[in-house]
């Protein structure tokens, strides 16, 4: 009989569990959890005015920000929230915790095993619903979408719930323009003392912070459901007749409100413009000696070039990675520009074909998604990283819609291979550059739209004249509501405005606005239409809006300097992209910050 020894072993095990081990629990050891469930309210004691009525303009004191963050904030004009696409901007998770209103937490458990799957934390303000996964799942890959709440995983450590969050959208450190980038990650600790909950967040942002930003927020437990959990927002026209390329902003050094806070509280401006030093005790004794010159030095960029600190969302492992977008539409990454595949009974429709280096693997990946051949390939532009795989993908497919037609009487190879569609200028430029004919588009269009109904979806190609080239198109899968933007929009770099290939900064802004004219968010400027950039991670309209704002603001700065008679060298020296360089900048490689600024300058100069 084995039963008794098993019981004894069990008893020993339980005795060990029962024993008070005492002493220190190493911080890294995961432990049993505690109950976070219930209704919680944060008393508005700390930062009461900021969290309630709103922060003072230009008050960044105590934030360990870098120059780019300060310049971004000083360039920010609060009128920007009157723009349709900013009216319903949500709060990112760490800022949401600081918001006014109530919160609610609850557990999600597996109904069979009763294991804890997730802890949900819902903030009334902007209806911020966080899911903290407790089941050990990994964070998604770098090319996955970013959201206001990000992707969070948690574990109990000591007496705290430790949460790690990635994949956040760009949002606010403070809602007076102080930015938190989409590259920020957060570590949080929730610890409960009876009915008092303390939340600690540690934000790391390689783009905008020099040191981690630490915040602590108190909550007290509410015994009753106050029942008002919604935060409705619907955008509308707030200022009629405003030009679509207008984004309220201040030029460097021209923010008229910089001194307002200081005048009100008798502080030198250099004291509250932020920086890691302003959070340390030593700063207290330095304030009195700060001068106007110290402040002025913080209002304009220095001359140091800054390169992007963003995570590379490309896998670079020689493999093709597949990400399901919606319905039967997929993203394929790993071979240059992003590739999108729509599958169905009528055969695959592919948008762009990558660089061609891994074309065979692209074909194999598509075959895993669909047994049907590739019927159509749509090119968003002529560049090699978007069309390099055309020939191989074409050869791997066929177009039965052609082989049974009159074409077949005249062309023996009609329908052999997929049909490649693009704007005529794509074909023209590919032919002119001597690219192999097999990869060139054969089905071209000249005016604004090419359309087809394929695999039960209405698919439209819209020509975006003079955007980054003269042949750019965006592709909209209307039923799946996925827009593929090509290089009109990326999350990895400044737009590659190729003047020699017919690109222009004004056309680029028009193209970005054209994307925004077709998107619909699901909730609080998030979700809804999926936007696939030419390079980078899966987006929605919020990322396009931020990118559009950036291009407009840089254009405005360059245009102002041109109107003042500035030379190209003077514009470059002014570092008109300083607030965006840690996100998009490059000092070397095929598209540098200098090249972008030069393209904007030369384009605007010739139109002056």
């Amino acid at each position: 009989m084995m039963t008794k020894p098993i019981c004894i072993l069990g008893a020993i095990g339980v005795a060990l569990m029962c024993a008070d081990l005492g002493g220190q629990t190493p911080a890294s050891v995961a432990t049993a959890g505690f109950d976070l469930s219930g209704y919680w309210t944060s008393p508005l004691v700390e930062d009461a005015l900021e969290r309630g009525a709103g922060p003072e303009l230009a008050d960044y004191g105590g934030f360990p920000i870098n120059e780019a963050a300060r310049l971004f904030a000083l360039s920010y004009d609060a009128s920007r929230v009157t723009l349709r696409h900013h009216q319903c901007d949500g709060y990112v998770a760490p800022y949401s915790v600081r918001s006014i209103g109530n919160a609610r937490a609850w557990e999600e458990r597996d109904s069979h095993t009763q294991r804890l799957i997730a802890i949900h934390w819902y903030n009334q303000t902007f209806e911020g619903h966080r899911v903290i996964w407790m089941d050990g799942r990994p964070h998604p890959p770098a090319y996955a979408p970013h959201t206001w709440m990000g992707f969070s995983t948690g574990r109990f450590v000591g007496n705290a719930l430790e949460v790690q969050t990635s994949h956040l959208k760009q949002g606010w450190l403070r809602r007076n323009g102080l930015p938190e980038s989409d590259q920020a990650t957060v570590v949080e600790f929730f610890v409960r003392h009876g009915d008092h909950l303390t939340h600690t967040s540690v934000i790391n942002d390689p783009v905008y912070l020099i040191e981690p930003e630490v915040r602590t927020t108190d909550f007290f437990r509410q015994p009753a459901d106050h029942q008002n959990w919604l935060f409705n927002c619907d955008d509308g026209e707030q200022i009629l007749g405003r030009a679509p390329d207008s984004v309220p902003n201040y030029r460097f050094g021209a923010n008229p409100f910089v001194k307002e806070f200081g005048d009100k509280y008798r502080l030198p401006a250099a004291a509250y413009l932020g920086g890691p030093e302003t959070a340390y005790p030593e700063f207290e004794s330095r304030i009195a000696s700060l001068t106007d010159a110290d402040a002025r030095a913080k209002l304009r960029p220095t001359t140091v070039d800054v390169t992007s600190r963003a995570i590379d969302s490309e896998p670079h492992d020689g493999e093709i990675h597949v990400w399901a977008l919606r319905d039967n539409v997929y993203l394929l990454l790993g071979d240059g520009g992003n590739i999108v595949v729509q599958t169905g009974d009528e055969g695959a429709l592919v948008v762009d074909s990558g660089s061609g280096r891994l074309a065979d693997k692209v074909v194999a990946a598509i075959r895993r998604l669909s047994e049907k051949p590739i019927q159509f390939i749509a090119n968003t532009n002529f560049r090699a990283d978007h069309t390099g795989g055309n020939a191989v993908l074409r050869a791997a497919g066929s177009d039965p819609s052609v082989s049974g037609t009159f074409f077949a009487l005249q062309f023996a190879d009609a329908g052999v291979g997929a049909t490649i569609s693009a704007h005529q200028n794509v074909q023209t430029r590919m032919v002119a550059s001597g690219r192999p004919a097999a990869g060139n588009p054969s089905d071209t269009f000249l005016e604004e739209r090419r359309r087809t109904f394929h695999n039960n979806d209405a698919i439209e190609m819209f020509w975006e004249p003079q955007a980054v080239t003269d042949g750019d198109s965006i592709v909209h899968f209307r039923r799946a509501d996925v827009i593929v933007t090509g290089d009109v929009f990326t999350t990895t770099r400044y737009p590659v405005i190729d003047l020699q290939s017919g690109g222009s900064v004004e056309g680029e802004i028009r193209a970005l606005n054209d994307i925004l004219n077709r998107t619909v968010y699901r909730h609080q400027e998030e979700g809804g239409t999926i936007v696939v950039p030419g390079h980078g991670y899966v987006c929605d309209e919020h990322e396009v809006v931020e990118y559009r704002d950036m291009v407009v603001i840089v254009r405005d700065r360059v245009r102002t300097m041109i109107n003042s008679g500035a030379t190209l060298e003077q514009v470059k020296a002014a570092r008109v992209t300083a607030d965006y360089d840690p996100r998009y900048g490059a000092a070397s490689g095929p598209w540098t910050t200098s090249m972008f600024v030069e393209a904007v300058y030369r384009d605007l100069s010739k139109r002056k």
Partner: protein
Amino acid sequence: MVRRLGWVAIVCACSATVVAQRGGPPPPPRTQAPFDIMGYWVSLVNEDWRYRITMPPKGDFAGVPLNGAGRQAAAAWDPAKDEASGDACKAYGAGGVMRMPGRLHITWTTDDMLAIETDAGMQTRTIAFRGAGGEAGTWQGVSVGAWDRGDTAMSRGGFFPGAAVRGGSLRVVTTKMRAGYLRKNGVPYSSDAVMTEYFDRFDVPGGDSLLVISTEIVDPTYLMTPLWTSTHFKKQSDASGWNPRSCSSR
């Protein structure tokens, strides 16, 4: 039958453990510490920044739930008068000093006594785990400490208490403080105030160690509701930056 025997064994094992724990003197608090609190900690002043790192104007007490008497006292603040009466340290009492920009030096003075020194105002608070630390009527008052492991009398008596939360906080209750200021600009607390603090240490993966002090001040004289704040410090590897300085009213 077998199943029942198993349960009996489990209950016996638990009981034996509890009995074993009851024998002998309790271990000293220092050895029971759920985390290492010792060392130098520097405050990161990024909340209530204007109120803490600069001198806020008289009567500016946003966020503090002062009652009428509290508002009256705040409006009557006169730093010159404080200096003249030897009360320059009113903002450096236990109810205010932890919010001051500065550094803490925390040490075990005995196995059941902690000392928290602040370089701001050169104050020392003694926290006793047995008996009471400090003196009544002083800026730092009388502090009693205990390890708070998040369990309750009910959970200790519950089934499978071994699954209770590990780790824990330092809970400190401070009373009998000399009346002082919550903020440097004369926002008051009275000698009747009771301050309960929870000290937690968080080790950020790949980053700093933080000391977070969650504080509740109950003051029937000057506050309408309890005042809650949480104040954070970063661990330093040494005493660099330690800068003892006298109390200042201005």
